[in-house]
């Protein structure tokens, strides 16, 4: 049974006659040395709240975020904090950010927010900052060092000198397959900041980095890509245990590069196809990744979801909560030294819907 139980699953279990008298204990002592406590956090990402006109917003995307927030509030044991992984808005408008922020304000507990390109390219993050503070920062929690990066920056030329209006700039960057877009970067200034931030840490400190874009180079055509990913990775590699958790791709991906484990998170808005489904381009999806199930493309919340993450061993275990679909768990396999999908390692064990569309 899953370590995490939502009220919905408890009720469903009780209805089915299963006797659930106790919930799992909320904290266990540590697998990763010392006397720190284990903890979990909840990760919600890519809501893409989209204004139609006035107080009217696209219903599907609203519902995805509302459901994730409602269920995150029911999780037992309670998460220590919640991360929102970027792209709260679709076109960076105040109305969209306000509407999304109001939904996120219903969350219990501390919220940390990551900058997405859809939040940024209208006013370059000004209004977002009024709501959520600095574009990049770090914090410590129970012995783990967390870093939040703004990984969706690009060149000065593209940002400041190419478009007649801010609206045009936003529209160009919002299209995933738009050849007028530009690859994302963390950039020199922020990499210097990161180097300084990490310099004070013991290399044994478990490190978790949140970014919106992948910090690895997966598929440039759809900007599943960060141009200075290699330089950022070089700063992270000296640490014993590094985890990068990213949004943006609207699908399950995972990878291992040296000491760095990568896990993507789901979107609450809509799913994206895997790069190899585009027949005209070569795919660079990490070979470790087993593509996610598309059980029913005609179900409104198909292939969207949110996730619970624990770092019990200093490495990420991501439990993907998929609406109307089997949960997926991607956990670090210490023998193999990389993340694995717990249920679908063997091709013969993958259910038919793994390749269904």
């Amino acid at each position, binding site marked *: 049974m899953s370590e995490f139980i939502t009220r919905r699953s408890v009720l469903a279990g009780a209805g089915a006659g299963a006797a659930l008298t106790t919930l799992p204990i909320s904290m266990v002592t540590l697998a990763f040395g010392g006397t720190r406590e284990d903890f979990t956090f909840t990760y919600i990402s890519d809501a*893409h709240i*989209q*204004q*139609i006109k006035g107080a009217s917003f*696209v219903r*599907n995307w609203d519902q995805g975020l509302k459901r994730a927030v409602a269920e995150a509030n029911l999780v037992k044991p309670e998460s220590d904090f919640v991360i929102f992984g970027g792209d709260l808005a679709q076109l960076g408008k105040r109305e969209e950010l306000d509407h999304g922020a109001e939904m996120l304000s219903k969350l219990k507990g501390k919220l940390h927010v990551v900058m997405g390109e859809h939040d940024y390219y209208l006013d370059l993050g000004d209004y977002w900052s009024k709501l959520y503070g600095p574009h990049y920062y770090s914090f410590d929690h129970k012995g783990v060092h967390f870093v939040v990066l703004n990984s969706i920056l690009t060149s000065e030329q593209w940002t400041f000198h190419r478009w007649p209006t801010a609206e045009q700039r936003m529209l160009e960057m919002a*299209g*995933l*397959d*738009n050849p007028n877009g530009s690859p994302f970067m963390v950039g020199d200034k922020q990499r210097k900041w990161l180097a300084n931030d990490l310099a004070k840490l013991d290399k044994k400190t478990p490190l978790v980095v949140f970014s919106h874009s992948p910090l690895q180079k997966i598929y440039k*055509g*759809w900007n599943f890509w960060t141009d200075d990913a290699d330089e950022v990775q070089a700063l992270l590699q000296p640490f014993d245990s590094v985890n990068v958790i990213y949004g943006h791709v609207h699908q399950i991906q995972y990878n291992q590069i040296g000491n760095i484990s990568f896990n993507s998170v789901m979107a609450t808005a*809509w*799913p*994206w*196809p895997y790069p190899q*489904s*585009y*027949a*005209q381009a070569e795919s660079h999806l990490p070979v470790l990744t087993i593509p996610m199930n598309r059980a*029913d*493309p*005609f179900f*409104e919340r198909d292939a969207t979801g949110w996730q619970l993450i624990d770092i019990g061993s200093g490495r990420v275990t991501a439990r993907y909560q998929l609406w109307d679909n089997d949960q997926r768990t991607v956990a670090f396999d210490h023998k193999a030294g990389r993340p694995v999908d717990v249920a679908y390692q063997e091709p013969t064990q993958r259910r038919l819907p793994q390749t*269904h*569309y």
Partner: protein
Amino acid sequence: MLRSTLLLAFGLAAFGATAARADEFTKADVERYQKEFELVAAKGRELWTSGAVGTNGVACAQCHPNAANTHPETYPKFQKQLGKVAQLFEMVNWCIRNPLQGANLAPDDPRMTALVSYITFERRGVKLAPGQH
């Protein structure tokens, strides 16, 4: 003699003319046909990325960059939400009605032709697999 020669000459001329008409696809013609298709497919991409066929600003490209995961090579096929074997345009209309909150386009609406041209162009080179899921 003269008459039959004339007839024969006329017959030959007529045959020759027919043969010439049937073989009249010049390089310039083929280029024009190709250009016509490209214009329509480009119009399709414009509709695909702009949200112009819906009412809520949602664009097809939000879920389907480069029209990926539309699988035009598998149609006609059984479509669960329609409860029958359907053609690609019927699936396009399902998307227009639902995520895009718009109204059905007729099968021969130039906008539908443009959308299907774009979708199919992005899957060029993939083998036909009608009915497949």
